[in-house]
């Protein structure tokens, strides 16, 4: 659900250290951060290594490994979190195909869902 609303349109930005966009949790509620099992980002077909992904929300930045034991913060329903990919040099201007997949541990589900969105986002020159 909400698959096609995960990547926020027009939110791609870049710097010397990497690039970032806003992402939303594809779910009808929020989740405590410890239940976000994985976030995968690919840009123009290249997968960003897990250790280079950062999750930033309300002034705090976490690695994915750190998030696994965060029990006092949440990714709220519909909340736009900044999804950061550390990538030296960032991205050149132009269109980029971004894939964003979230795997979450949901207590009542008899499986561990991964939900994915793909969008082409433009970076101004």
């Amino acid at each position, binding site marked *: 659900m909400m698959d096609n609303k995960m990547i926020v349109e027009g939110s791609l930005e870049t710097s010397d250290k990497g690039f970032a966009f806003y992402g939303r949790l594809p779910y009808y509620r929020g989740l405590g951060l*410890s*239940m976000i099992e994985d976030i995968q980002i690919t840009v123009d077909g290249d997968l960003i290594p897990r250790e280079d992904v950062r999750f930033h929300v309300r002034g705090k930045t976490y690695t994915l490994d750190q998030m696994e034991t965060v029990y006092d*913060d949440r990714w*709220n329903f*519909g909340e736009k979190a900044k999804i950061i990919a550390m990538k030296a040099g960032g991205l050149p201007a132009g269109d980029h195909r971004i894939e964003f997949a979230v795997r979450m541990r949901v207590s009542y589900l008899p499986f561990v869902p991964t939900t994915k969105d793909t969008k082409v986002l433009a970076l101004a020159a």
Partner: protein
Amino acid sequence: MAIKRGVSLYSFQNETFQNKMSLEDCIRTCAEMGANGIEIIGEQTFWGWPEVGVEDAAIENWHQLIAKYDCVPVSHDFMLDYKRYKGREMPFDEQVASVKKDIDFGARLGMKYIRALVSIAPEVLVAAAPHAEEKGIKILIEVHAPLHFDHPWIIRHAECFEKSGSDALGFLPDMGMFLHAFPPVWKEKFMRVGVPQHIADYIEKAYADRVLSEYVILNVQQMGGVGPAIAMAETLRHNAAFEPKRMLDYMPRIHNIHGKFYEMTADYVEPSIPYDEIVKVLQQGGYDGYICSEYEGNRWIEDMMEPDSVEQVRRQQVMLANLLGEPTPQLRAAA
């Protein structure tokens, strides 16, 4: 006392997710439909719940809106994430403490009920029941497909509730367990992702004929079905046309109803759930609580159009008012 109409704000998730409707918009919309019972999923409506907490100002705002639109808080649906810790289940005592926290949150919101998900162990709810009694709250386990009132897991809950002697424990049946026809919006979605017409038609017909899910899955494989065709057949494992009259044995413990629906047509019909029969059974059983609309068609159509959740809920409320013998609600014209 008559059956009352309400809405779970879950129904408007597509709009609230995108900030297209505020909490006030949701409550006003329900009030305009004469559906004055308001049910929420606490952590959908209130950012921060449960891990961070919710400030008193947000709770005050809730009570002001409820009063402004002459509505009634019905249920706070809680989740209890017992898989919060990677690789180990939350210990029993911590689960009970978590439920008590949700009881307190429900009480802050003026709710009469809190909804427990069906996978929660009955012992956890029984242990939390004395606290619920103190706070004037009933904990209702949601009986939801694929579970149903004759399933051993639900019978185990019922037995535990009886043994506890507490009247703070009960049931919240989700009407999706009475799925008497394969929902057209499901079939259309599966066809959009590649299920061939003849296989989709076969599955729909097999559902109508009440064929065992495992036979249908095998037949679809033998028809050459792959991927989405198998997934479509597998929905029969998780859905079945159980009988609304199975609720009658449990009426003293049924205190809220999820009016699940996948689609309301322009002539006020839910093609897959038999609401005429459901309302008759509830009336026969002397039910006098709320039926809260729970629109879940959004996820089946969002790939091709923006759902109009308000119009869908409006149509269901017209249907419910008609079935309950109320005057048709005077609602805003369809936008």
